[in-house]
């Protein structure tokens, strides 16, 4: 301890390069965003200071609220879709299953496929005239269930979320599998001696042992789905109307398409605080639960 406090400099030197890069490329831009958010600026001509007008505009902007709602929908779909599904398959694959490795690879596949390709392929499958889903429904006599999946505001968000869930289940599957492998065999043996059966072992040993991993997965899931952009951008471009618009996309459009750099910065400030708040909330809830246990 004494050596550390006496020689702070080597530590500072060691951290400095990484810290500097982080400062320049992560912290400073956030601060600059705060500055831009008080400006009216089209990127070409001089900036004009307009105080909090951008913030006022954002709060009264229905598209902003719509995108926030859609964003929360994506978060909910991811947390309640991806995590349980991944957990289910992880528990399944953790048993000594024939061909388990193949299923593991298949499950992980979507994660390594480029998002653009996923979006285009799923876009074709969802197509209302000759897409896979509608043709399947028609061929088994469920024509009335066929929908204009991506073209109907009622269904577009749901269709997009199904794709997002499919894309990332594999990632959490691998995380959960790794965690499962770390649970000591002795615990199960002890439980077996006490007469615990399959379901009891899962509920009373496996899940509690994985609590920390699940918390991490949920947080990854929240921050990942708040950032969601590419998949929706390619699949629907936010349409039809603004029914699949999410915050990051609305910010991007306002900044680089409408060239309203000031307003775009304001939106990104909101995203910053929403993400911070949501992740904090999630940790709070999940930690309290684990403490209570």
């Amino acid at each position, binding site marked *: 301890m004494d050596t550390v406090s006496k020689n702070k400099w080597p530590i500072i*030197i060691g951290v400095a390069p990484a810290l500097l890069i982080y400062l320049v490329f992560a912290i400073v831009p956030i601060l600059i965003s705060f500055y831009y958010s008080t400006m009216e600026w*089209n*990127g070409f001509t001089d900036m004009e200071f307009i105080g909090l007008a951008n913030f006022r505009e954002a709060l009264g902007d229905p598209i902003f609220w719509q995108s926030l709602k859609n964003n929360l929908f994506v978060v909910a779909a991811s947390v309640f879709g991806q995590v349980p599904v991944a957990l289910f398959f992880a528990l399944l694959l953790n048993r000594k299953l024939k061909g388990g490795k193949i299923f593991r690879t298949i499950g992980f596949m979507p994660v390594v496929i480029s998002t653009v390709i996923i979006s285009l392929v799923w876009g074709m499958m969802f*197509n209302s005239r000759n897409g896979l889903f509608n043709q399947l429904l028609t061929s088994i006599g469920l024509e009335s269930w066929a929908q204009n999946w*991506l073209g109907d505001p009622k269904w577009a968000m749901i269709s997009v979320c199904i794709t997002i869930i499919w894309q990332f289940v594999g990632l959490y599957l691998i995380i959960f599998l790794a965690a499962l492998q770390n649970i000591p065999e002795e615990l199960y043996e002890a439980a077996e001696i006490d007469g615990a059966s399959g379901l009891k072992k899962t509920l009373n040993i496996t899940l509690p042992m994985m609590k920390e991993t699940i918390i991490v997965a949920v947080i990854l899931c929240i921050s990942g789905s708040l950032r969601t952009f590419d998949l929706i951008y390619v699949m629907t*471009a936010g349409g039809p109307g603004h029914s699949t618009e999410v915050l990051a996309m609305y910010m991007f459009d306002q900044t*680089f398409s*409408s*060239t309203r750099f000031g307003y775009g910065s304001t939106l990104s400030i909101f995203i910053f605080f929403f993400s911070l708040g949501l992740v904090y909330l999630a940790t709070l809830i999940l930690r309290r639960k684990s403490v209570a246990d």
Partner: protein
Amino acid sequence: MNWKSRGMVATAASAMLILGACGGDTESSGGSGSNGDQVELTFWNIWTESSPQNEASKAAVERFMEENPDINIVQENIAHDQFKVKVKTQAAGRQLPDLVQVWPGAELTPLVEGELIQPIDDILDTWDGMISESMFADYNVDGTQYAVPANVTPTSLVYYNKDMLAEAGYDQIPDTYDEFKQLIEDLKAQGDIPITLGNKGQWLLQSSYISTIGDRMTGSDFLNDVLAGDAKFTDDRFVKAVEVIQEMAEMEAFNNDFNTLDNIQHRELFLSKEAAMMIDGAWSLGPIVESIEDEGNLGIGVFPALEGGDGNPEAVSAVTGTGIAINSELEGEELEAAQKFLESFYSEEYYTELLESDILVAADVEMPEGASDSLKRVAEIVNTETTPVYDAAVPVDLTDAINSGLQEVSIGTLTPEQFAKNLQDIVDSGL
């Protein structure tokens, strides 16, 4: 040396590394400079697709470099949508290339206002008698010329399949909207998609539909009047024009996946004879002529007249394109090289090559013998009267609102009145 001073040296060194990296970066993205005797000019354009027009343009650049071995043009070909974003971003950082492709109106004006590009008035007499003043007008801001137009693009042609229309009992696009609606019903009755539409990118309803349909109702001065505060989007005539689009969507004139296809995919429906008509710009002419089975079966018309409209019922919205602007920071030897490039790029040879690849040009050059009948037909339409395209006439934030608003109107989540009011609110807040 004790720890402290060593640490400071290291910190200073790493800081310099980073600063050095930044410095290097600006230099390379500035990208210009003379290398020995050779002048190097960076040039960004959207010639990524291997279309005949792009090939002709690239060939013109190669030709120039062969004739002028002392000038080296370094091209960067970037896809259209990404190009526009990239230019806006780089412009904000004042890091545009020496030569940059520019679009008229709302895209050009901010570059001029930001003093990022410079006038080319000095070299304009090169095109005396070849390019008329009205063709130059799109690239003219407040009496100063910033680029030379290569092609003129009508954005709202009605392509139709003659056989399919004949089957429904029509030999051309009807003259009035009521008859046009009947045609749509007749086509639907015989099991065809009346009009193919791919509005996923949201700009097609604006560029190819409202630009002409709006003009039919409001006349050509409307947009300027609105921007000047002398007229309002809530004008009955504009609302009526939007209602036409709403009505077509409601009567299922389009393929039902029209909001999930893009403007390339919708062309396929027309080519595969699933759809009888397609309302699209002249940019589709080349690809269609190239892949259609029988060009004699391809008809081209304009949107029908609307009752009570103030515009010319035969006019079509059009915009000139493929202008190249010179970076305002260029001077001396490099500026001379850039001007020389423009002078020889927009040559009669280039314009003739464009005509041969079914592109209508802004210059007055003779129609080559190999020109297709379809191109002659489009030239005929354009010679009647052209009107402004919305996205070239209004600021970008308004264009975005029109684009997404029209999509909402088409799916029924926004009424034409509310849409018009939203647009007027944006205009009012900007005044």
